[in-house]
């Protein structure tokens, strides 16, 4: 290397001596991208640490053993007592809270019945403040209860009022404003009610077959080994249906949700970094274009291409390091500075601090992105020839860099995707996101090229004759050296992410909130006792407003083994194996059932147990006809052979069981019935009143309420993702402003020439405005197509719901594109308009 690396470094230092003024787009783009990822990662890590630190409080104990449908046996109680310093028993189930006034009002509630030891850790907060034991003791005549404020508001209840659950009256002692183990309990369809377990004795709510769960929280002595205890519990009670959780992961649902959402937001952040990469690339290109003479001069003086490459690579590396460090400082400190707001608004505990892991991850992404987007322009320094200095016409044709640079770019890209997949722990999602970003970039690049060709053609067409501003704008968009490519790519990608999120959100909401109530039942009635089912059916089937009633016996069971092997070893982390599932039985498949493979058992079959399994889930789990499943129901193992697969459609919110067994297999097991009632909306209230009056133990879940609850959760997720996407858009705007600023000199020159040939300021302003608006329109339109394709792919292939183009969010995206480019363009229009032609033209002479 001529002069070697020392010369290259000296050269880099000399060139950077001029300061960083020309590099603000470069630095801002990289810093913003890195900061967004670092901030999301830091918050995710803070929540993970918070959940870990508060594990025991969230769980309600150091460890928890839980059972479905039953209380712990004497053996199980004895074992738990032997390992614990204290044990607390909690019963969890859904019920209806009934208030009898002039009109009877009902509200679905998630009941937690507790003993005197509850809560083992943390504190219950009540309004008015009082001890939980006092609140639940009641007023002497009636047992006490505390309920969540949302439920009290809905039923207009205040402390001192009374209400009924099942057949038991309660007095409301206080409102429940804080529950330490709330996040660990998972998703509930109704607001919380807290009562003493012994107060339920006469409620007829905890009957054989009723769907309830018992949880035994244990406080352990200092230094107890949770892993050993879990092994011991599983060794002794695996087959009794005991499930084990401990404070190592106190709120697995929450922690998994936060982890997934965090991972997804980091991936969305990568889209922001890609947008930043375009800004970085444009900045480096512009910088190196301005250095053409310097490079040619250096070559004239004998510098080799690689020396020059090294000199400029060193400059870019120094700048990139600065941008990354700035991003890490912003991203790392932002959650700490915002911690009062974050801690107040997050529903889960967060230990907000500076964590090196997420910062390293963000730095790695930043470095890889900077390398990927600058290698190509840097490689083009090799194409500058010494003769450039003496040639009349500049050699502006861009050729591909040497294969080594293309290979290096591809390898860096693979490394970035690999890192994203490794950090996010979700290969599929990471690959899909990377594919989406890459696909969008390719589509946007092609679109930018197409837009230039089209603009060039339109500029010459008869259509724009006489429309000078439009013709000039089209000529500028289609001409060489314009900002078309970088604006369409950067703003376009930002808007694509926004359009994609908008399409997915709108379609998902449409599927759940608009389409689902059309096909979904009005009510789910659960916990209908066998002796109540005939009367229940007589009431609902005899109603003219009821169009359909589906009923099925229901038990709950856990699939513990597949072909004699632990189920998780065979089918991995499939959701069907998460906790217990509904199990039903039937003599015949029923009119609406489609058997996809195998045969249903014969009528009155009494042989070894057989099971019909949901076809789609069976395929995902790798199950075959003839496989044997061990299902633990109420502590009893039932081994059944899979003899058929059938279609189960969960999208209509109707009754759908993964497992359906032959009746003899479950004979004797206590169970209840579940029923779905499809009724006209006007008749829903009367049906509920009648059923609740006749069968107080039966819980009714109004599907519209459940849909509202799910929609609320989805809205929260959509908001989080939209914030993530907005970060991408902000970076896109920086690139846009950078492009407008970089083009200001060119606009000043154009304005001077146009004034010379007779253009007035109004015409120049119109030209600049139309030019900006055209770029925004182009970026927005391409974003709708790319975002639409992304939205369609996610909706169709991942969510499996029908897709329809959603015009409102699309119009917003196009309008945002036009407004953004227009504002950026017009912000830099002042100098071109104010320019005096002679000064500008002579300065360039």
């Amino acid at each position, binding site marked *: 290397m001529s002069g070697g690396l020392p010369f290259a470094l000296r050269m880099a230092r000399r060139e950077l001596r001029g300061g960083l003024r020309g590099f603000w787009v470069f630095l801002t783009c990289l810093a913003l991208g890195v900061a967004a990822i670092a901030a999301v990662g830091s918050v995710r890590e803070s929540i993970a640490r918070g959940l870990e630190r508060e594990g025991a409080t969230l769980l309600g104990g150091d460890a928890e053993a839980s059972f479905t449908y039953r209380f712990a046996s004497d053996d199980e109680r004895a074992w738990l007592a032997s390992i614990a310093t204290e044990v607390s028993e909690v019963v969890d189930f859904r019920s209806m809270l009934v208030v009898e006034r002039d009109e009877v009002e009902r509200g679905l509630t998630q009941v937690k019945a507790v003993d005197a030891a509850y809560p083992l850790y943390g504190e219950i907060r009540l309004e008015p403040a009082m001890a939980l034991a006092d609140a639940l003791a009641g007023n002497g005549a009636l047992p006490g209860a505390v309920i969540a404020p949302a439920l009290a508001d809905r039923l207009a209840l205040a402390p001192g009022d009374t209400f009924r659950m099942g057949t038991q009256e309660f007095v409301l002692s206080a409102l429940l404003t804080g529950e330490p183990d709330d996040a660990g309990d998972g998703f509930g369809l109704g607001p919380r009610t807290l009562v003493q377990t012994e107060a339920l004795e006469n409620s007829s709510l905890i009957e054989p077959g009723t769907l309830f769960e018992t949880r035994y929280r244990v406080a352990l002595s200092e230094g107890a080994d949770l892993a050993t205890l879990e092994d011991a519990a599983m060794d002794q009670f695996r087959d009794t249906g005991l499930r084990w959780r401990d404070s190592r992961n106190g709120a697995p649902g929450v922690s998994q949700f936060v982890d997934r959402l965090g991972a997804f937001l980091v991936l969305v952040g990568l889209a922001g970094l890609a947008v930043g990469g375009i800004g970085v690339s444009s900045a480096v290109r512009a910088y190196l274009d301005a250095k053409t003479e310097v490079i040619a001069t250096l070559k004239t003086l004998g510098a080799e291409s690689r020396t020059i490459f090294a000199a400029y690579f060193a400059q870019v590396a120094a700048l990139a390091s600065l941008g990354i460090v700035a991003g890490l400082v912003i991203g790392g400190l932002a959650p700490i500075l915002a911690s009062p707001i974050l801690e107040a608004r997050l529903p889960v505990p967060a230990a907000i601090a500076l964590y090196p892991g997420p910062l390293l991850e963000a730095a790695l992404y930043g470095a890889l992105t900077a390398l990927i987007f600058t290698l190509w322009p840097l490689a083009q320094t090799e194409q500058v020839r010494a003769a450039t200095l003496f040639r009349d016409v500049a050699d502006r044709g861009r050729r591909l860099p040497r294969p080594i640079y293309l290979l290096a770019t591809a390898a860096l890209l693979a490394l970035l995707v690999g890192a994203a997949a490794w950090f996010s722990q979700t290969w599929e999602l990471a690959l899909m996101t990377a594919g989406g970003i890459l696909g969008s970039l390719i589509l946007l690049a092609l679109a930018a090229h197409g837009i230039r060709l089209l603009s060039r053609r339109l500029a010459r067409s008869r259509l724009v004759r006489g429309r000078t501003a439009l013709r000039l704008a089209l000529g500028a968009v289609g001409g060489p050296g314009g900002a078309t490519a970088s604006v369409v790519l950067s703003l376009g990608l930002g808007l694509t992410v926004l359009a994609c999120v908008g399409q997915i959100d709108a379609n998902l909401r449409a599927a759940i909130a608009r389409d689902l109530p059309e096909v979904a039942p009005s009510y789910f009635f659960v916990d209908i006792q066998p002796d109540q089912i005939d009367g229940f059916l007589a009431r609902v089937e005899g109603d003219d407003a009821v169009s359909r009633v589906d009923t099925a016996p229901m038990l709950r069971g856990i699939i513990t083994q597949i072909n004699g092997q632990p189920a998780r070893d065979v089918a991995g982390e499939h959701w069907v194996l998460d906790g217990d599932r509904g199990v039903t039985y039937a003599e015949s498949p029923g009119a609406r059932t489609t058997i996809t493979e195998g045969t249903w058992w014969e009528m009155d079959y009494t042989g070894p147990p057989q099971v019909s399994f949901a076809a789609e889930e069976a395929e995902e789990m790798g199950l075959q006809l003839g496989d044997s499943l061990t299902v633990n129901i109420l502590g009893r193992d039932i081994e059944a052979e899979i003899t058929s697969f059938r279609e189960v459609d969960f999208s209509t919110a109707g009754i759908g069981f993964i497992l359906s067994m032959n009746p003899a297999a479950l004979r004797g097991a206590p169970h209840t019935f579940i029923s779905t009632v499809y009724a006209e909306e006007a008749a829903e209230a009367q049906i509920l009143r009648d059923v609740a009056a006749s069968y107080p133990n039966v819980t009714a879940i109004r599907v519209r309420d459940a849909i509202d609850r799910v929609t609320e959760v989805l809205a929260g997720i959509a908001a989080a993702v939209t914030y993530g996407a907005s970060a991408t858009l902000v970076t896109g705007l920086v690139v846009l402003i950078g492009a407008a600023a970089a083009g200001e000199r060119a606009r000043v020159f154009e304005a001077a020439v146009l004034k010379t*040939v007779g253009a007035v300021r109004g015409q120049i302003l119109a030209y600049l405005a139309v030019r900006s608006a055209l770029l925004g329109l182009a970026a927005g339109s391409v974003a709708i197509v790319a975002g639409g394709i992304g939205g369609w792919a996610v909706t169709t292939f991942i969510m499996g719901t029908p897709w329809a183009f959603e015009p409102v969010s699309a119009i917003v995206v196009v309008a945002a594109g036009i407004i953004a480019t227009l504002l950026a363009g017009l912000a830099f229009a002042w100098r071109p308009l104010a320019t005096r032609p002679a000064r500008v033209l002579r300065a360039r002479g």
Partner: protein
Amino acid sequence: MADAVLSLHDARLTLQGNAGPVEILRGISLEIGQGETVGMVGPSGSGKSSLLMLMGGLERATGGTVSALGHDLTAMNEDALARFRRAHMGVVFQSFHLIPTMTALENVATPLELAGHADAMERAEAELAAVGLAARADHYPAQMSGGEQQRVALARAAAPRPDILLADEPTGNLDGANGQAIMDLLFGLRDRHGATLVLVTHAPELAARCDRTLRLADGLLDRDTPQRSAAE
């Protein structure tokens, strides 16, 4: 001069430099008649180009008056000047000053479009053909040589058939052969359309082709000679 196309009376130009005000033109008075070809010569920094810019309304005189075709340019605002140039003037620069994002044809068509000519493109094509560049109509400035770019600039200046053609060292960036070709074209265009031509040049042989030569020195008109006298 009764039929003066350009008329300057005590025209002055003072610019603010870093070290204080700089007097570029210190009181120029002259008249140029219709159809005249005038060469402006003088050493670098004498104020030739500045004087040309005043004549074109591209620079505003800081004192005195500058009139063109009977209109006082010093009284016009920026837009009025632009409209005046659109209707009556064509300007050619040493550095061509084509808009890089436009093709040769679009560059030539721009003043015609601004003037509202429906047949701007057809006329621009004809102008390009007249300077021998019909085949380069779709090329961008960066794809053309300096000589070709200057020919496009000439076509652009001549296309609206201006009354006044102003040229600021139009061959200054070109080699001998290209420079000669451009001058032949410039004088040919003037002869065909009968415009008044004012030309700034360093080359005595170009000045010699004009009817009249103005020599500037230190911001003042040093000599104003009809060509025959200058030759003598």
